[in-house]
């Protein structure tokens, strides 16, 4: 069973359909939520938290109905919103303790875990300062601390690296990576930054215009593209290509000694070096192409990396996308 199950989910807000018939099952340890502005990412998160009532269909979190069982779900979820959201007049530790108590921790335990959470995210030294004196990066971290303090089973992070400088962003990504590695908490991360999702997530849900554009396992996607190789050679390129084809590779030659080929399963890259050595061909560059998240995202959006609309054949390429 996936942690989040979408079954024909439709949400209308202000008379406009924001989520339109989402169906799928999210089961990764860290799920990335991608999409352009207005795609419905935040609405989906709000629906998961029970803030919006689905117009049609259902959404289940841990097998519980997101609207009917919202209190129980919220007890198991830690939520870090995108925008500033805190009580600036409180000290950091008091704020995190308050949130932990609201999540159901007894007062003493909430205080203990508030201190721990603040040390964990790196705010231990400033935990007695009022939150409205924190820098932007600290405010992001305290939102993470309050989301973690009660030990949730699912952590929903909405744009966690928003407005952070490179160092702070790296620290945030590292923290998220550590939490993921610990294994007891699942992550749902919404971000505009593909690199953030690429570094942390193993599954990605891409929304476009309120619909699912792609739902795929990033690792599986990468594995499926590992056999695609680009070579730059010097020497008898044509003869080399013929030999490679004889091994069972699909191969295409281009001017300047460039060769693109797809290796069959039983052939490895080192076999190419053996053939090249036998034929006196120099392999100057070997690029084992791996589908980046950007490729997956652009394919889902129907665009090429250069911004051109993607050919229909490329869009329809089977990329292990489960819709």
């Amino acid at each position: 069973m996936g942690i989040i199950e979408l079954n024909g989910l439709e949400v209308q807000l202000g008379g406009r359909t924001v989520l339109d018939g989402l169906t799928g099952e999210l089961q990764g340890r860290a799920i990335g939520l991608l999409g352009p502005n207005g795609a419905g990412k935040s609405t989906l998160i709000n629906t998961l938290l029970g803030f919006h009532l689905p117009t049609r269909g259902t959404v289940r979190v841990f097998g519980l109905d997101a609207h009917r069982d919202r209190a129980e779900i919220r007890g198991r979820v830690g939520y870090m919103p995108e925008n500033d959201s805190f009580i600036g007049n409180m000290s950091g530790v008091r704020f995190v303790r308050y949130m932990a108590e609201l999540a159901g921790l007894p007062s003493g335990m909430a205080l203990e875990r508030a201190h721990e959470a603040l040390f964990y995210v790196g705010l231990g030294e400033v935990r007695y300062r009022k939150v409205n004196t924190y820098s932007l990066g600290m405010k992001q971290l305290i939102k993470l601390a309050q989301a973690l303090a009660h030990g949730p089973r699912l952590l929903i992070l909405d744009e966690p690296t928003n407005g952070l400088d490179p160092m702070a962003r790296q620290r945030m990504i590292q923290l998220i990576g550590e939490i993921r590695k610990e294994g007891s908490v699942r992550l749902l991360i919404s971000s505009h930054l593909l690199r953030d999702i690429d570094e942390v997530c193993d599954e990605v849900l891409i929304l476009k215009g309120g619909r699912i554009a792609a739902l795929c396992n990033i690792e599986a996607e990468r594995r499926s593209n590992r056999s695609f190789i680009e070579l730059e050679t010097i020497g008898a390129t044509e003869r080399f290509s013929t030999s490679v084809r004889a091994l069972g590779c699909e191969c295409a030659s281009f001017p300047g000694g460039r060769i693109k080929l797809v290796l069959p399963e039983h052939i490895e890259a080192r076999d190419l070096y053996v053939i090249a050595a036998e034929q006196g061909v120099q392999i100057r560059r070997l690029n084992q192409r791996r589908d980046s998240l950007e490729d997956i995202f652009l394919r889902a959006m129907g665009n090429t990396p250069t911004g051109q609309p993607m050919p229909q054949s490329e869009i329809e390429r089977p990329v292990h996308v489960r819709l």
Partner: protein
Amino acid sequence: MSVYRLNYRAYTGKVTPLWMRILVVARYGFNEAWSSRITIGLFILSLLPPIVFLVIIYVANNPMARSIIGSYDPEKMKIGASFFLIALQTQSWLAMVLASWVAPRLMGFDLADNALPILLSHPISRFGYVLGKFIALFGSLSLVTWVPILILFVDQSYSSPVPWAAANFQLAMGMMAGALIWIAFLSVLCLAVSSWVRWRVLATGAIFAAVFVPSGVGAIVSAVLRTKWGFLLNVPYMMSLLWQRLLGAPEFLGRWGSLPTPAILIMLAAACLVSVGMLNKRVRAREVVRG
């Protein structure tokens, strides 16, 4: 998590029941309200009249003290419905001053920094959140209304001959009911106004305006249309009538005469409903823009 290990650790301990979260909001709200020196100052100010009333009760029940101040006639310092009506009115209007300071603190800090999305993403409903704030404000106002007034009643019961308490028990019930109606109305109204006016100083002014501006409008309506029903917008007048009736004190009739008690109660209930509607509109984790 653990400080010495600095790594993440899930929580597996016991969890408090859902209704306790309302008390958590109330407790933090109460603490927030009373962390201000101005709140403490207003509270001390609100306790000064009860001290004066205690002295009056002491003098009224002590012939020697009366002789010292030269008042030998016990009827001149009679402790009864009129005395407690003055006490109730004094404390009730001081409670309004306190509420106009405390309510904006209860709501303002949460709204100013957009804390509602985080607060409401926890297992507490919007109703539970507002109820928690209501309890904090209601509790604070109780400390300056029915609590000191009942202390006065107990003091008078103790100081006077035994039959006094039994004969005037309805007075205590009336004071309690009058104070509870007033602080419940005031709490809902003040929270509603505070939820719409983010700047706390402005919110304090808006609370006074919400009580006294309709009174002026009501007076104009009554004068122009020559009717008593305009006074249904006059909260101070309505509350005075209600308190007089609850305590059985002689009724002060204005120029246009009295208002029926059911009409007063319906009007107060309607004002509370409008306030609840305002809170319902404002206390949300997310705003939906129509169009």
